[in-house]
């Protein structure tokens, strides 16, 4: 066993806060050195703590369910874009391991309060919020704000605590255990996917508010300062910086449509009339203000103002790329004002915009096919493209009103309840509603949808090589070599997410350097200068941690009973050829791609389970032992 070169924990806050809502006890424990060295932080911490603490088969909505909120040794420093809060939990939507992440200021503030992570367990007797002021942790009555939207909750909590408090809260969606409910920050950044809001709702936890006055101490502050200056220069010269700053993810809606990544009409089609409304110069007209997260000069967030139509006067955080798609093309809707209004409802009620829009598209296809009728939809004629139906269904889902009570369970469970072949039109993987990319038009990206440990997520393996052709181009339609490309991307994301970074920032920096290797080398140097931990100096070690985290997450799912058969995509992609250029005639070659991927991963081909050899190679012998004990390890 290699010992830590430096005993003092530089960069880290040095403590983990454990909150037990049942007993109203807050415990501070020292951040374990082994955890630090083996998992770095953020997603790495979450994966390990969840593996250790969550018994297999635990109901995600039970008091025994554990949620871990984490950030990293670089959070709260001057390094750019390490502002993310990571939420790791067992998802009530998918029954799998889940990692969800959002930006804003909460993570930095929690680090300033002196914590590297918050571990939440138990269930409060009545609605509660937790107020953290440096070392002081209070469990406070949230009865007053229960039933209130996120913005109202933040307002009331700030009245009772401090104006500058940073807040993560649930809205009425989480309270009602809507399976697509999420956590929302005071500035509408959301760890959005997988039902984190329902986990809090089940715990009677309305919010966590935090204020901190400490600052992390760095191992080599001068060296670290130099690295940050290098980062800022690379950002400035990056070709991605300007588009991201000017219009955020909105800059690519129209171009991704052209590239064939943009499914329409519940993935039935890939074409849409009037798609020109998503041209950048049209979207730019709505932008009133640029907003950013803690310590990020990209400031990709935008505030939109609506001046015409039935929603005139609305001023709110803009819809991101995925939200434009989920509320727009997948429902056949091209009314930007209605999309923005539905987006605002999701933010205030606290539900995931991607899943919400995907569910509305699902309902519209069921209505078109005659599987559900106006009567079952509380009198709604769910025709493609109707903006009023979009807004009304989003509201009903968030409040579990009428048919919304069924839809709030997510597409898979809703399809089971509806029956009559509805499951054929549920566009998901492992129960997580699919986002805005067609797997047939980018095979490694599609393979990541199918194999992702959290289900149909675009962020677990966002494939820049295929989608943008950067830093080098891979033919998105080719099948050969896609196992390797998918693994490489998933591992890199897991690695920089263990360092607590933002995916957009990685793209900006990689475009600036022109190489992934240089970006990973910079991360290694920054981690070492911040922490002094010898292993972090070597970028190959950072990659290894990425693969370690990815395999541990996989092991969590294996322990929950997941195997190859859950690495799946809807029949539509496997049998219906893609209808237009550029991917005309393409289907998704699932089985062939899975074989290739498992072989590259060193996982058992038959079951998709990591082998003992692979787990031991990654320093996860204890994980292999436990899987073997449970009879889950392939022979």
């Amino acid at each position, binding site marked *: 066993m290699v010992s830590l070169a430096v005993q003092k924990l530089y960069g880290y806050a040095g403590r983990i806060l454990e909150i037990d809502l049942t007993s109203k006890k807050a415990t501070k424990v020292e951040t374990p050195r082994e955890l630090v060295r083996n998992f770095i932080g953020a997603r790495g911490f979450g994966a390990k703590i969840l593996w250790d603490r969550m018994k297999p088969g635990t109901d995600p909505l039970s008091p025994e369910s554990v949620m871990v909120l984490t950030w990293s040794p670089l959070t709260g420093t001057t390094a750019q874009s390490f502002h993310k809060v990571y939420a790791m939990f067992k998802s009530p939507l998918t029954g799998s391991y889940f990692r969800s992440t959002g930006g804003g200021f909460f993570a930095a503030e929690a680090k300033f309060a002196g914590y590297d992570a918050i571990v939440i367990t138990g269930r409060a007797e009545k609605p509660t919020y937790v107020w953290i002021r440096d070392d002081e942790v209070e469990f406070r009555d949230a009865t007053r704000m229960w039933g209130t939207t996120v913005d109202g909750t933040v307002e009331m909590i700030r009245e009772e605590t401090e104006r500058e408090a940073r807040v993560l809260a649930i809205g009425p969606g989480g309270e009602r255990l809507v399976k697509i409910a999420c956590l929302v920050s005071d500035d509408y950044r*959301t760890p*959005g*996917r997988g039902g984190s809001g329902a986990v809090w709702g089940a715990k009677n936890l309305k919010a966590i508010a935090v204020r901190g006055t400490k600052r992390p101490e760095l191992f080599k502050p001068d060296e670290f300062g130099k690295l940050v200056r290098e980062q800022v220069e690379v950002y400035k010269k990056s*070709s*991605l910086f*300007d*588009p*991201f700053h*000017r*219009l955020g*993810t909105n*800059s*690519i*809606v*129209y*171009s*991704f449509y*052209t*590239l*064939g990544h943009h499914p329409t009409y519940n993935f039935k089609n890939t074409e849409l009339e009037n798609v020109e409304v998503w*041209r*950048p*110069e049209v979207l730019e007209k709505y932008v009133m203000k640029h907003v950013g997260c803690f310590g990020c000069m990209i400031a990709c967030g935008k505030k939109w103002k609506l001046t015409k139509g039935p929603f005139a006067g609305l001023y709110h955080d803009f819809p*991101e*790329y*995925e*939200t434009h798609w989920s509320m727009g093309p997948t429902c056949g809707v091209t009314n930007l004002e209605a999309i923005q209004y539905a987006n605002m409802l999701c933010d205030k009620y606290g539900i995931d*915009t*991607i899943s919400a829009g995907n569910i509305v598209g699902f309902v519209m296809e069921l209505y078109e096919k005659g599987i559900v009728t106006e009567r079952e939809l509380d009198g709604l004629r769910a025709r493609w493209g109707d903006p009023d139906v979009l807004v009304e269904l989003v509201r009903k889902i968030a409040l579990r009103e009428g048919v919304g009570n069924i839809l709030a369970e997510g597409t898979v469970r809703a399809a089971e309840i509806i029956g009559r072949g509805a499951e054929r039109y549920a566009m998901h993987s492992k129960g997580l509603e699919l*986002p*805005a990319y067609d797997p047939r038009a980018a095979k490694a990206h599609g393979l990541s949808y199918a194999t992702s440990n959290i289900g149909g997520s*675009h*962020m677990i393996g*966002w494939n*820049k090589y295929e*989608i*943008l*052709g*950067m*830093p080098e*181009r891979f033919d*998105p339609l080719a099948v050969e070599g896609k196992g390797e490309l998918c693994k490489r991307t998933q591992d890199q994301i897991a690695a920089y997410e263990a360092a607590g970074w933002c*995916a*957009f920032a990685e*793209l900006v920096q990689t*475009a600036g350097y*022109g190489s992934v290797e240089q970006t990973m080398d910079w991360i290694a140097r920054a981690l070492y200068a911040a922490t002094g931990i010898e292993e972090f100096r070597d970028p190959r070690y950072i990659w290894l941690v990425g693969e370690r985290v990815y395999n541990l997450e996989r092991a969590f799912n294996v322990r929950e009973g997941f195997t190859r058969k859950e690495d799946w995509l809807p029949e539509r992609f496997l049998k219906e050829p893609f209808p*237009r*250029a*550029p*991917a005309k005639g393409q289907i998704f070659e699932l089985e062939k791609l899975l074989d290739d991927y498992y072989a590259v991963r060193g996982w058992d081909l038959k079951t998709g389970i990591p082998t003992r050899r692979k787990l031991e190679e990654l320093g996860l012998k204890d994980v292999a032992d436990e899987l073997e004990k449970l009879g889950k390890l392939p022979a």
Partner: protein
Amino acid sequence: MKVYVEFLGYAAEKVGRRWIWLEVETGCTLGDLFTKHLGSIVGVELSRALAEAFARRELVVAVNGRTVDSLEHVLEDGDRLLVFPIAAGGA
């Protein structure tokens, strides 16, 4: 033969129009399109700057929805080109 070229973002701003039909010779490459044909309309300097931005991978060119990575790419009659600054999407 004719090709259709559409511009987005700063490419549209610099060129001053959103789309353009261009009459090009058979065997015309993407490089020829930038230097010869586009140059005669938007000016040689700007068309060269666009070609260089493409070579540095700051501008993406998709031909009929597929990104291309070389100025040697040979165009065909009726091709639809989209020229846009590189950017990325997420939640």
